[in-house]
């Protein structure tokens, strides 16, 4: 539906950020989020729609750890 790609915030100025996508740097509107430099943001249509809280590996560990939670006695 909606392709969005994570990139790293390199610099911030007003409502815009320079975001690094594996070496490709693009200006992104950050009016919808409040990122810090060094954080990853999810970017769609030139706008950051969310700040990624954890890195991918941590997230997957957390997801799998919780899968069985509802079934524990």
């Amino acid at each position, binding site marked *: *539906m*909606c*392709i*969005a790609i994570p990139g790293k915030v390199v610099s911030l100025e007003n409502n815009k950020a320079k975001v690094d996508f594996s070496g490709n740097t693009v200006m992104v*509107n950050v*009016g*919808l*989020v409040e990122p810090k430099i060094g954080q990853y943001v*999810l970017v*769609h*249509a*030139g*706008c950051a*729609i*969310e700040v*990624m*809280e*954890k890195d*991918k590996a941590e*997230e*997957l560990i*957390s*997801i*799998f*750890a919780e*899968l*069985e939670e*509802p*079934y524990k006695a």
Partner: protein
Amino acid sequence: MTDISEVIKYLKDYKGRPLKLMEVCGTHTAAIFKSGIRSMISDRIKLISGPGCPVCVTPASFIDKCAGYAMKEDHVLLTFGDMMKVPGSSGSLADLKGRGARAELMYSPMEAVEKARANPDKTYVVAAVGFETTAPAYALAIEEGISQDVRNVRFVTALKTVVPALTWICENQPDIDGFICPGHVSVITGSRPYGPLAEKYHKPFVIAGFEAEHILAVIYEIVRQIENGRAEVRNLYENAVRTEGNIKALKITEKYFQPGPAMWRGLGTIEDSGLYLREEPPVGLYDGGSRGLDEDIQLPRGCRCGDVIVGRINPDECPMFAGQCSPGNPFGPCMVSAEGACGIWYRNRK
């Protein structure tokens, strides 16, 4: 704790009743192919695609409206890539470029305001297609236009919201047992809107990210819920989706847009499933005539895009698939759009 190999084993060995799970979102359809997930799970778990392709569900009258602007003097149409090849009544935008239409690709709706400011003698018209994920980007562009008093921009919108379509699916396709909820729509909306659906229709709604592990975990979660008689909303895309969604994005969308009826190819008109620019000035001045764009072309005889969009059939069950209909010679939008199920199935077939 469960690990990925246990999840895969469980899903491969699944011998329960046959299940139909809908992957609502075109990006998930693509991710499922890229990861080879169908080959990892039992045949008894059927994954079908849903209406999560904004271009596929947009009727031809929208294309015609945009094409009209592209052919108009001193107007330039700005659009995302997919829309260029989707057929309207007189051909696609790409076809019309050959006849003098001015249509340019955009990466972001913000470009419309930048271009309009730099070229005051032209009017820039944005073909504003998308779901909840993209609506805030258009809202930001409108806000920018208003604050900079840039008046030579218009938006022709074909914005749709997912939950009303999911309601329609639950009502009309009761044989779907569970839903893999769209990842990036949910970033904006949060997980809350799926709650009433899970409760009313008693089916699991689980939000997935886009890696293979995300999707496998979600399929596992849905199957386990069904086996245990549970029907809950669960968010397994924790990095990006919060229960309440992105409040700023929701607020700015509401500031500039209001709900209204929208025509979905394959589903029909669904009340309050579209977003339209609010009418009061100055917001309403940016609307390029988005209401009432309901009429569709008759799809060619034999084209089953409508059935593919609602998951009644898989693309390879359409008699035209990979024969008369292919990306080089598409009959319907499902084969044209990057997020259309038919195009994705075609590009991934062996």
